[in-house]
């Protein structure tokens, strides 16, 4: 029914998808599996004709529906052609009932005289027919969902069902794409969802099921497609696959001795320098629920995991940027949470993943960006006036410090007065590092240090992190979505899944171990028979 033929895509010269081909049959459930950045999102965007694709130069290859090539100009074209999509984030109106949401902007209406005068939108909603339609859609799904409950009063699972029912109301719907539908569901709700998916497949609807929960994929999918680095690495019938295969396929490249990480013997060990216990962080989209770990002095500690699982919440919570609870000790002393200043004073610094939002003052020069935090915290570039009554900001001293870091980190700029907003991504990242280095921290959190920057700059940034670790002895906690990069420089790597620690591995551990941990199959969520989470090396 749906066929992809050699689909590829570049964003500004960066290749994110190349030559992807596979078919989806009516009534078939296809599990689509891949790490973050593997190209799943881009593939779905192409399929749905999202504007961003056309704006960045279109795509290669072709999408065939029933053997005819289609090229959707907007998601509404895709919907008209019978493709429905349920996004990871809920797209529901909280004050509307399930029925109103299911039929959002497709309500049944009765025309009246005013329609002729002022247009279709003057027609009156036909609530009785709407109720029938939504009941029918819910019935097709076979779930217990009350059409008259307001969404804001529903449990999460029911919100998810409402979303799916919305797609089912379209009579012509033939293909349903579910993007991480189970990510927010409890175990029992997820079971109901899988059953509903099977029911839909029996009715002849094809389903593309995107999930990182490999066990669910194996349980429900007829066929599994694995994407990695923009390429299709495996397309196989379900029977022929095991969890372990899938995990290793997903995470990818087996790790050959090219590691630049310290050999196990050279790795720092000893009593916990940073000790985190029972940490919870309320960071939207990256919730940490219950996390404990400990980092040795001088170590480079990696935290990995898939997007949305909570790894980013760890540094943000510890540094006090989001509401958090639990206990954090640094060098034996308790660090209070929810107080950024106390965290900084304790000797911790943070290079945020949100460079433009949190990391930089986009409207100010490099000098301000580099020196500001250190000025506030340890009076860098401050000249006391009148015996310290006033603390005068010395612009010349700020420039001097900034120039020093520009040289040391090779930041490409016209001058240190250049606005940070005008720098390239890589140079912005270096400015962020310089800002953290200027604080002279004992412990440095680095979050997604290479996100959105080009390959050459990636290298430099990683080298810089390693250098500060070796030369200044700064303990590093590095959070990254890129497993390769963690394995490249870290001494140990923790994997976070659903806000909890899935396990801690050595960088040279087999790649499928990582994959299994990320897929919720290690530790807590382990299915019977799955390998237990390896302990600390």
């Amino acid at each position: 029914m749906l066929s992809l033929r050699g689909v590829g895509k570049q964003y500004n010269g960066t290749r994110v998808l190349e030559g992807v081909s596979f078919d989806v049959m009516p009534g078939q459930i296809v599990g689509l599996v891949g790490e973050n950045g593997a190209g799943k999102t881009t593939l779905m965007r192409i399929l749905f004709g999202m504007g961003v694709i056309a704006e960045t130069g279109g795509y290669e290859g072709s999408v065939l529906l029933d053997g005819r090539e289609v090229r959707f100009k907007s998601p509404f074209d895709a919907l008209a052609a019978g493709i429905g999509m349920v996004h990871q984030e809920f797209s529901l109106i909280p004050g509307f009932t399930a029925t109103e949401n299911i039929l959002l902007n497709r309500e049944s209406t009765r025309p009246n005289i005013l329609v002729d005068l002022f247009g279709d939108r003057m027609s009156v909603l036909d609530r009785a027919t709407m109720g029938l339609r939504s009941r029918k859609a819910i019935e097709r799904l076979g779930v217990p969902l009350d059409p008259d409950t307001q969404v804001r009063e529903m449990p999460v699972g029911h919100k998810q069902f409402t979303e799916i029912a919305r797609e089912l109301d379209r009579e012509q719907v033939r293909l349903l794409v579910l993007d991480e539908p189970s990510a927010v569901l409890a175990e029992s709700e997820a079971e109901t969802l899988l059953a509903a998916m099977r029911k839909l497949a029996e009715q002849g609807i094809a389903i593309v099921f995107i999930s990182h929960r490999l066990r669910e994929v194996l349980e429900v999918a007829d066929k599994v497609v694995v994407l990695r680095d923009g390429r299709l690495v495996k397309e196989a019938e379900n029977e022929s696959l095991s969890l372990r295969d899938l995990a290793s396929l997903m995470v990818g490249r087996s790790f050959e001795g090219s590691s630049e990480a310290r050999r196990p013997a050279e790795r720092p060990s000893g009593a916990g320098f940073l000790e985190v216990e029972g940490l919870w962080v309320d960071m939207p989209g990256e919730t940490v629920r219950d996390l404990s770990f400990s980092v040795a002095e001088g170590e480079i500690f990696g935290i990995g995991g898939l997007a949305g699982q909570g790894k980013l919440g760890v540094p943000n919570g510890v540094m006090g940027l989001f509401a958090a609870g639990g206990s954090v000790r640094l060098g034996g002393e308790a660090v209070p949470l929810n107080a950024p200043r106390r965290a900084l004073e304790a000797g911790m610094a943070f290079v945020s993943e949100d460079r433009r939002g949190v990391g930089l003052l986009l409207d100010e020069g490099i000098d301000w960006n580099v020196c500001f935090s250190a000025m506030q915290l340890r009076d860098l570039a401050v000249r006391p006036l009148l015996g310290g009554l006033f603390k005068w900001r010395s612009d010349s001293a700020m420039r001097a410090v900034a120039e020093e870091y520009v040289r040391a980190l090779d930041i490409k700029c016209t001058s240190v007065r250049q606005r940070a907003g005008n720098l390239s991504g890589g140079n912005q990242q270096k400015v962020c590092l310089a800002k953290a280095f200027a604080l002279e921290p004992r412990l440095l959190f680095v979050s997604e240090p290479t996100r959105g920057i080009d390959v050459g700059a990636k290298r430099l940034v990683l080298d810089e992190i390693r250098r500060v670790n070796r030369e200044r002895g700064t303990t590093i906690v590095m959070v990254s979505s890129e497993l390769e990069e963690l394995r490249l420089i870290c001494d140990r790597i923790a994997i976070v899944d659903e806000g909890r620690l899935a396990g801690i591995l050595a960088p040279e551990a087999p790649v499928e171990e990582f994959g299994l941990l990320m897929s919720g199959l290690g530790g807590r969520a382990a299915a019977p028979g799955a390998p237990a989470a390896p302990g600390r090396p």
Partner: protein
Amino acid sequence: MERIREFVSDFGLPRIIIALFLVLLFVAAPFVGVSVASSLSNTIARFGMNGIMVLAMVPMIHSGCGLNFGLPLGVIAGLLGATISIEMGLVGAAGFAAAAALALAFAALLGYGYGKLLNRVKGDEMMIATYVGFSSITLMSIGWIVLPYQSPTMVWGFEGEGLRTTISVEAFWDKILNDFLAVRIGERFVFPTGMILAFCGAALAVWFFLHLKSGSAMTAAGSNPAYARASGIDVDRMRTGSVVFSTMLGALGIVVYQQSFGFIQLYEGPFSMTFPSVAAILIGGASVTKASIANVFLGTFLFQGILTMTPSVINSVLKTDLSEVIRIIVSNGMILYALTRKTKVAK
């Protein structure tokens, strides 16, 4: 061509039009029989009178609280200071100093509460500030009636109750700053040295503060609150501080205004102070999120220049009084422009 376009987009078209308009007014003035010297003198006097109140916008914009529609609070503090000083019967420099000092003290108090309030309504500051300002003016109007003032200069005669609507400061500190070291050139031009010095002094204080460590923190808090927070700054405290600072400037501003004007206007007087000040700083090139001292000087001069020149010049040309309408359109148009402009920094 490209550079011109860039200049226009940086500086903002409305501003350029207003500046050109003012130049045109000055050029046209002699031809329609309006004295340039006295116009300039008037403009400078009004520049000095209003400058500090325009300056009162700067700290709050810097800390990210937006335009200070709550200026009436500062004005009320200034009115309290001035009336209490008169009640105490102080005259001359002592009276003025007492008025200013009391005004600052009240402003600090009011500003603190106001700042705390604004911290709890982030994002809605401007609308709330407007109505908090209005309601405090009317509340204070009740105050002017019931407060136990005694001074015969201020209290209504026999049958009335409470304070007069306008109180003359003639017997106290009328033009005390204006006349300080005032320079007279010719018959029609007077340079109010003392008042301009006071304005410059206040501007210098703001400039100095913004160059301190804590002032820098305030700027960062306004420029990017998330960044500031991550740098260990208590953003709320910075905002409260900026509100206190702004309110104090507003209070000082109204006292300076009164000594030049010669009267204290109570009751609904403070209503008319806010919008001209907001409009002035925007005309000077500030936006809802960015403002500098230079914006204050330029904007106050342009706006007050237009206010001075339109009644005399336009009226002589068109034989009709368009100045009021021009003032309304220019000042509110400017604020509207600032509110609807897409801010450059993407959140």
